[in-house]
């Protein structure tokens, strides 16, 4: 989280880089073909779903196997609202709030039980969800599902549908990523992290593990709802199959592969979710699942921290290969000698001469 002071820590440099990045991202839909745009939009949809899962599982350490359920509920609410002519703003809000309320109710019960209870209860969600979606056919269209082309590009925009949909994903998904990034830093990020690593310590810091688990789970459900809305905007069709348990497990694998407790990792997880089956299919259509499994094992074996840790791992490898760098590393990683050295360096502080610490 802390960079050494330099060019990139200056406010205006970072602001300029952000501005350039935003413009570049907004130009993307115009520059690619339809197939690529659709793929990118789907990556965005599942990156948001993985992001939600990361809040509850990556950051807060509560195993959730039900994330796809909230994505599915969000998609169904969107489809229902869109086919019944609701205002698009109302559709968006409902597709977020309804999964959020369900998530809150589930969490109020599950977090009280603690331990594996959350995993078990969330496991039940997709298992119950699929037959429920089939049964409630008045609202869900039963096994046939619901389709709605509410996200076609409006006339005034002059865009193709795929471009318009990708813009929807970029704007809505981008906002969710930004809000979530803000939340998992600072006060709430620290609170989630200590609930994950030690609940007794969390409690003695004034952080009720129960309340923060419920909070994390509710936020994950809200984000799942957003993902469902975007899913409907991009795929324009949802059926009971959307919220099946298999997808939930794949979401979990995508989170781990992208990088647990990482914003960028969520994005990479979304990319894995969409691209891994395509890649495997491209190599050999008969062994898609096997190849995906092999890919999963390969990533976990080589990069236990997920794809997001790749730059760090490479940097460490490079440092180890340099003899001088290696010696330096050894010294700083063993506590005692490093401390002795520091104590000498810090001697002036103790004698009362202030150090040049920035205020």
């Amino acid at each position: 989280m802390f960079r050494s002071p330099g060019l990139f820590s200056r406010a205006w440099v970072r602001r300029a880089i952000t501005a350039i990045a935003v413009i570049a991202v907004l130009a993307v839909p115009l520059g690619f073909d339809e197939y690529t745009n659709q793929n990118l939009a789907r990556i965005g949809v599942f990156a948001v779903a993985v992001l939600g899962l990361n809040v509850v599982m990556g950051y807060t350490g509560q195993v959730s196997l039900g994330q796809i359920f909230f994505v599915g509920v969000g998609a169904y609410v969107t489809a229902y609202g869109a086919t019944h002519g609701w205002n698009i703003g109302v559709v968006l809000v409902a597709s977020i709030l309804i999964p959020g309320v369900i998530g809150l109710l589930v969490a109020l019960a599950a977090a009280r039980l603690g331990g594996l209870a959350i995993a078990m209860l969330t496991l039940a969600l997709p298992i119950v969800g699929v037959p429920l979606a089939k049964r409630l056919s008045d609202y869900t269209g039963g096994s046939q599902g619901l389709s709605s082309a509410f996200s076609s590009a409006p006339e005034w925009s002059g865009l193709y549908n795929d471009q318009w949909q990708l813009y929807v994903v970029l704007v809505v998904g981008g906002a969710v990523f930004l809000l979530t990034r803000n939340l998992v830093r600072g006060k709430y990020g620290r609170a989630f992290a200590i609930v994950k690593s030690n609940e007794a310590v969390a409690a003695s810091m004034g952080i009720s593990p129960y309340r923060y688990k419920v909070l994390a789970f509710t936020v994950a459900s809200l984000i799942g709802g957003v993902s469902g809305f975007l899913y409907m905007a991009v795929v324009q069709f949802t059926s009971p199959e959307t919220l099946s348990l298999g997808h939930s497990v794949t979401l979990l694998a995508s989170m781990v592969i992208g990088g647990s407790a990482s914003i960028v990792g969520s994005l990479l997880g979304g990319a894995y979710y969409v691209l891994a089956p395509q890649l495997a299919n491209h190599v050999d259509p008969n062994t898609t699942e096997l190849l995906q499994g092999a890919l999963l094992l390969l990533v976990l074996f080589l990069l236990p921290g997920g794809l997001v840790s790749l730059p760090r791992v490479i940097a460490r490898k490079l440092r180890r290969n340099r003899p001088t760098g290696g010696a330096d590393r050894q010294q700083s990683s063993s506590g005692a000698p490093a401390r002795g050295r520091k104590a000498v360096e810090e001697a002036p502080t103790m004698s009362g001469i202030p150090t040049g610490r920035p205020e």
Partner: protein
Amino acid sequence: MAAELTLTDVNLRFGGIRVLTEVGFAVAPGQIFGLVGPNGAGKTSLFNCISGHYRPSSGSITIDGVEVLGTAPATLARHGLARTFQHPALRLGATVLENVLLGAHTRLPGGPIEWSLRLRHLTRSERELRTEALELLDRNHLGWAANRRVDELSHGLHKGIELCRALLSRPKLLLLDEPAAGLPHSEVEQLIETVRRVRAEEDITVVIVEHHMGLIAALTDRVVVLDHGRKLMDGTAAEAQSDPRVIEAYIGNDAVDDAA
């Protein structure tokens, strides 16, 4: 305002095992109070009762006259109680500063929606607390380590980091669970100096569980000696050290008989 702590007839049972029996004592505001006794005497259990992690089966615990028995630890922390743990419980992969900042949780305003929007007054209070945390680390000779990962540092430093984390919450009652355990002699000296300085600078009551009699003698105003979950005596550290019941509890009956 330093807190006043009173325990009356506290009993704690785990199933059929009596861990604490009728323990009672009073700690005056601003005191440094020692809780001593041989291994298994129930010191840490008593600590966990005060901090709300255990719920005594009967008795009364009041802080500033308010009954806190059965109050959740998170609630107690919000009302000015802070503690350290016998085995430092830090996030090893995070930096020292991030660990210390956790102590300021209850001092930071704002709910999850406000933090998601990164409102300006929140980022300002976060920045101010960062500065305060760095100053606190500096005063405890840990300023140099602020941006180090905790797992790169020694056990003794972990104890110091945990103390800083507890202090950043600006507690009125601070519980230290074996702060000197596993520290070399030189660091114990520094710890004594630190606790003294904390008491002088902050308006705070300190309760210490400790085996290290040197530290207890050097620091505490009063002590309570526990043995087998019962209060053996209370008084000053010097009185405790010369009390035959205490010597018996620590060394055993035979030793006393032999000496006699």
